[in-house]
């Protein structure tokens, strides 16, 4: 097997992501997919830092830095401005972390989705507020250590299901992706680019620093997340038509995914079993959703098109 990705780089090295940063690689792939005619809107997130301190900048496309809660609306504004100037061949992408998406930016995101603003909204999810010192977010999985959910009282709430929230908006396209499957990820950005309206892409992007794991395992952990069904790779059109894009080859237990990460070191057998159960449940639910075929229902189809 061999990866084929577009050769052209639209990013420079020298950016200040930690060694083995999943978020940095995610941006590299996304820009390879979208091409030069792209503008990026960054709210407060790791990428605000990664892009480099003044006077430096690491992308070969324009970036607008904006406030924490405003990624979606700022992107929609940029898009509207471009439209008015008649420049409608430019893709505008909001690029936010899990904090800026699931917590702080959710209102603006929901608003843009409700209006079906023509943007790609990417959440690169490293499951906590990483650059400010690893504080928990609503994307932090249950059982994980963060500096605000210490080992004695790790996070007790499950990860918020942002994909379902976005699907509920019935936007044209929502998808998950991760770095161990670059072609899938790149294809999804290309597909999103070809669709008008709000597109939401949720990228599982490991943070070796915050997850307390060896940086060289970055890709491996993405693969394990998918193969254990912790982070299934799927897409959903119009909030209705689900398809699972990567079907795990073998059933691997979640412990294989949890083990290499220091943030789960304190978990005991019972906790792991519980995680396994909830993963199995979610996976079954997703398979059920993906098995439904709405193309047969004229009613639903005609409604969905609107």
């Amino acid at each position, binding site marked *: 097997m061999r*990866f084929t990705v577009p050769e052209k780089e639209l990013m420079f*090295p020298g*950016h200040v992501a930690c*060694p083995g*940063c999943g978020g940095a690689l995610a941006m590299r792939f996304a820009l390879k997919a979208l091409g030069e005619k792209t503008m990026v809107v960054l709210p407060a997130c790791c990428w605000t830092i990664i892009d480099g301190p003044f006077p430096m900048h690491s992308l070969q496309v324009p970036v607008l*830095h904006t406030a924490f809660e405003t990624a979606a609306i700022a992107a929609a504004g940029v898009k509207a401005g471009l439209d008015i100037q008649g420049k409608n061949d430019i893709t505008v992408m909001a690029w936010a972390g899990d904090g800026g998406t699931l917590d702080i930016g959710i209102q603006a995101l929901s608003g843009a989705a409700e209006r079906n603003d023509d943007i790609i909204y990417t959440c690169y999810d490293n499951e906590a507020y990483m650059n400010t010192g690893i504080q928990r977010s609503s994307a932090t999985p249950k059982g994980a250590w963060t500096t605000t959910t210490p080992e004695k009282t790790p996070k007790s709430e499950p990860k918020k299901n942002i994909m379902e929230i976005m699907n509920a908006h019935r936007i044209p396209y929502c998808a998950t992706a991760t770095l161990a499957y670059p072609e899938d990820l790149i294809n999804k950005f290309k597909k999103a680019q070809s669709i008008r309206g709000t597109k939401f892409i949720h990228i599982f992007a490991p943070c070796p620093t915050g997850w307390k794991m060896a*940086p*060289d395992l*970055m890709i491996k952990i993405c693969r394990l997340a998918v193969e254990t069904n912790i982070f299934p790779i799927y897409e959903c059109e119009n909030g209705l038509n689900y398809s699972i894009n990567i079907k795990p080859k073998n059933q691997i237990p979640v412990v294989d995914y949890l083990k290499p990460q220091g943030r789960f070191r304190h978990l005991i057998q019972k906790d792991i079993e519980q995680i396994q159960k909830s993963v199995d449940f979610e996976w079954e639910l997703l398979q059920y959703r993906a098995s439904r075929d709405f193309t047969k229902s004229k009613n639903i189809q005609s409604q969905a098109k609107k």
Partner: protein
Amino acid sequence: MKWLEKYKVQVPILEKESDYPNWAISMTTTLLNHTGTWRIFRPIYLNKIPPCNNECPTNEKIQSYMDLVKQDKLLEAYKLILEDNPFPSITGRVCYHPCETECNRKDYDESIGIHCVERFIGDWGLKKVPFAKPATKRKVSIAIIGSGPAGMASAYYLALNGFNVTIFEKKAKLGGMLRYGIPAYRLPKKVLDNEFKKLITLGVKFRTSSLVGKDITLDNLRKNFDFVIIGHGAHKNRPMVIPNEEASGVFSGLDFLSQINSGKRPKIGKKVAIIGGGNTAIDAARSCLRLGSIPTILYRRTRAEMPAVSDEIDAAEAEGIKIEFLVAPVKITVTKKGKLTGIELIKMKLGRPDASGRRRPVPVEKSNFTLKFDSIISAIGEQVDLSILSADITKTEWGVKADFIGRTNIQNIFAIGDCVTGPKTVVEAFGAGKRTALQIMGNADKIQHKVERPVQYSELNLDYFEHTQKVPPPQMPVAVRKKNFKEVHTGYSNVNAKNESERCFSCGVCNKCDNCFVVCPDLSVLKDTGEYEFDYDYCKGCGVCAHECPRYAITMIEESKAEVE
């Protein structure tokens, strides 16, 4: 090309307030920021020795020619093999392929069918590629005793490099055991003749029917040639030392096979016993079958201890040949007139392990019994004839004393192959022949030694491979093949060879799969020159590239130990 060679980086001057832009806007790129200084470990491209190559006595670059076959570059693949093994059509057929035994893929599903791919390339090359011409002649003369695989390999590399080579061979035809030992159903004589054309084209001189020791002495050769290479093999049949061994109807395995291979038909009866458990025994039994007899192999230990190669035993059994285990001959039974009637045997059981590590067979008292046979073939092993050697050459218990490179105690006399090791294999003889040639040519630095630790299975990243089955080596059905001496294995097709080579992991050897380039978060793997290189100005040493290299062609080393550039 490094990033800093490709881009001129602007360094904005920001000394006074007016140098600053009116709003927060970037003025240059992060190329200014040399994140390479963060590094504690650095990745380096470092190809390693895969187990197949390490185990092959000629150290064929298996992983590399598999890669070439994948890309349909058959000419390159053929040329690459010839660098290490001049006669792949031979090893592709008769080599016991230790490479496959050690192949890392065996731990994943099934080892690569290396010898089948090798044979395909070898046969393709024999058909399509003109034979090599020798380099400009050098004034160095070399006498080689014996035209078996050891002598053939030495002759090839020496003649190719312009040396003056003469082979002295006692038999009328060339090839040693390849011609007179191994039966045609495993190695057709035509293949051997075609391979010999390489030596003829290189101008090697042959003196057949010249028995060194009788027709010409070793001392004589030493006087007339700059170097002498002894490669006369192990041809003495080991006697069974039992009564009536000399009776008519008793054959030695080597004589029997040699007769068949010379186009004669030995006079054997219907029921034939073959004594022994090595390859000679199996070949003799399978040949008997093809002559219309009913062979039975009698062996004094169990199948697990048989020195014959397991594939060969399987093939014999598939052809319906019976093997009686744990029996040893006591005497050949004959009528008063001396006519052979059969053999008296004694049952054996396994005792403690002997020097070879195999359990020693011990006789079960009073268990003697007799079986009726029309002919008996004794194939319990071969020994080296040491009588031709001059007194000043050091010997061992079983042969000529020589080191890995073939050096004997006397300068300018080398010894290679079975005459050094006792009966071994074709590919070991090829390897020894090549090493001696390299030594004489003054290329001793090119002699590859076995490494302690070739690439391990655990060092590969198997995420990038799918389970597949080996392409089975095509062969003639048993019912057809046991009636004649036609070749049993018919060989891979081009498609077979390609499919099989696709399965190779390329352990430890970069095959430009692009993974490292794709997965680097710091854009520090560059490939615009056609070769991969790291941009150490920016690489942070995360090690993702090394981890995701499927074949362990990247090694992480401590930055402090990296050589200063």
